[in-house]
């Protein structure tokens, strides 16, 4: 199969997934559309160096992810900073951090997505990588340049904040 054909096929098959990842990482549906288009445009430009044996999905998702990181860095605020492991652990262990009583359920998808979009970047990014892109802890640690345990702490904090947000939503 020619690279052009592989690209066309990959575009149709994976566009929604790429756009979804961008939406989760950037926290905005409109920016996600532009980011997804830009990711595929970049992929198209580097198509000559793409190895057809390599799975398309992984390739395009990593291009999209890197583009989103660039966008997040460029947004003017501090570059992606994930706090210190110690601070995050301490925050996770405060008395009512867990937000007991509310469980993250799939039937409240809209509310969950809205809450995720409002999370600070340092929680939203690992969350998106873990639960949308299905990356495991080691992959996330390498991508973000932090330790495995730090990843665990951030994900724990992310889920705690989501539970709180949903609890407030309900009440």
């Amino acid at each position: 199969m020619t690279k052009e054909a592989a690209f066309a096929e990959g575009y149709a098959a994976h566009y929604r997934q790429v756009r979804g990842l961008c939406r989760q990482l950037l926290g905005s549906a409109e920016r996600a559309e532009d980011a997804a288009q830009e990711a595929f445009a970049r992929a198209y430009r580097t198509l000559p160096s793409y190895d057809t044996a390599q799975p398309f999905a992984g390739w395009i998702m990593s291009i999209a992810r890197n583009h989103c990181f660039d966008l997040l860095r460029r947004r003017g605020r501090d570059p992606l900073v994930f706090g210190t492991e110690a601070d995050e652990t301490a925050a996770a262990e405060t008395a009512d951090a867990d937000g007991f009583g509310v469980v993250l359920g799939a039937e409240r998808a809209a509310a969950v997505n809205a809450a995720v979009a409002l999370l600070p970047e340092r929680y939203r990014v690992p969350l998106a990588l873990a639960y949308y892109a299905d990356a495991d802890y080691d992959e996330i640690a390498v991508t973000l340049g932090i330790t495995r345990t730090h990843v665990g702490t951030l994900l724990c904090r992310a889920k705690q904040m989501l539970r709180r947000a949903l609890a407030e939503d309900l009440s």
Partner: protein
Amino acid sequence: MSCPSPVLHSMYADGALPAAEAATLEQHVATCTACRARMESWRGEREALRGALHALDDLAPIPDFVPQPRQGGFIALALTVLALGGFSTTFWSGLAASIPIGLRWLNPFDWGELAERAVDLVTFMLYEGTAMWTATLNIIAVVIVVGFAGWLAAAAARKRTVVGAFAVLLAVVTALPSIGHAFERREGELVTVAADETINDTLLAAGETVSIDGNVNGDLLAFGRSVTVRGNVTGNLISAAETVRVEGTVGGSVIGAGRALSLTNTRIGGDLYGFGRDLELGAGADVSGNAIAFGQNIDMDGRVGVDFTGFAETLTIGGAVDGDVVGYGATVTLLPSARVSGDVIGHVDSAGDLNIASGAVVRGNIDEQLVEPEERRNRYLTVGFYTGQIVRLGAAFVTGLLLFWLFPVLRDVSLPDAGAVLRSGGIGLAAAVTLPVAALVLCLTIVGLPIGLLAFALGAVGLYFSKAVVAQIVGRRVFQAPQGPPHFAATLLAGLVIVMVVINLPFIGGIVDIVLTLVGFGIIVSLLTARFNRGSLA
């Protein structure tokens, strides 16, 4: 043993705890109610989160992928084509023949005539217009014309505010440094020169409304939405606006461009160059030199001291011309009040379109030259017509293939609804009007002559390719093959055949030809000006 931190619970729920630590946690949970409750409630969260995050994926449709157009490539293609074919007159006449007749008045692309005109203008400028063309004004004129053309296009085609585009023009004009030649600048929403005011300098006036009632001892450059000159200008007047009214006296020449350009009760010591949609030279207007006008409707009721040349859809002359009258247009009419001392030459579409009313006085010869010989009625009966069309089809197909091979983006454009068709047509029309106007004015400036001619040529090439682009869209619409999209060559050929048949139909063929060309031209212009086009051109 104290309860493990929530972090460990969270990692356990994600399946990310190493086996040993997981076992330790499970042992603790067996004995701790609180931790067991936590573990139970967090157990299904991973799956739940995954489901929730993916739930909104399918809502929005997938846009078409359009790889970024290579603007430089189109220029390169056009230049190559020009370089290869540019020296052959067959090439130019073939190109000119493919431009629909109805658009020809916009593109006086009769190569021989155009070259003659250009030479006439250039020599005229050299010998009688040197006072006007200082180096400063050359540069200013080029920049202003480009800005004006952009303003026209923006106003007509986009919905962006006219004021916004106008602001760009204003910025361009006011940002120009005064190169050696110092002149006065006045800008603002309302720019006026009072009746008792005298400006001893060249004046540059730019604003929404420009009203000059006083005297300018120098040149006057006026731009804006509405320009009215009632006072006296000893030098030249260069003006571009939506409406330009000249009611005063101008010692030098007048170059005016606008939607409506009217000269009433004015005396112009030099020449008049007018560009616009509706041009009017009122009964009291007096031009001592030549008058050259380009427009849609031209009404000449005043007096011209030397020759009058008009390019228009309808050209009506009711005044006096001390030299020759040369008119290009669909209809050229001389009213009973017309008095022409020289010849009257009308280049019209068909016999009878040059009307000399009884009462009009023409001292020289009257010559009606037909632009297109009257043999349309019989052409369907000749074999030559069909072979000619097949040759044209072949040429369009080959060049179209080249175009789509070089610019894949053009293969996939589509016009999903009537709105998109209208928009593209509008853009095409705006571009087709502003391009020759801008190019011609560029030709007037000695510096810009090669650029102007190049702009003409590029525009013609673009118009030529317009039908290939439209043919491709039509072909794709028609070819709904179940096994996936057909090759672009097949759709191009199918589309071209359909287009060729349609544009050669009697009566409606001409109009359809114009519409298709404008739509295709609009698509090309849109793609060239868009940085990145997402989805179809809707």
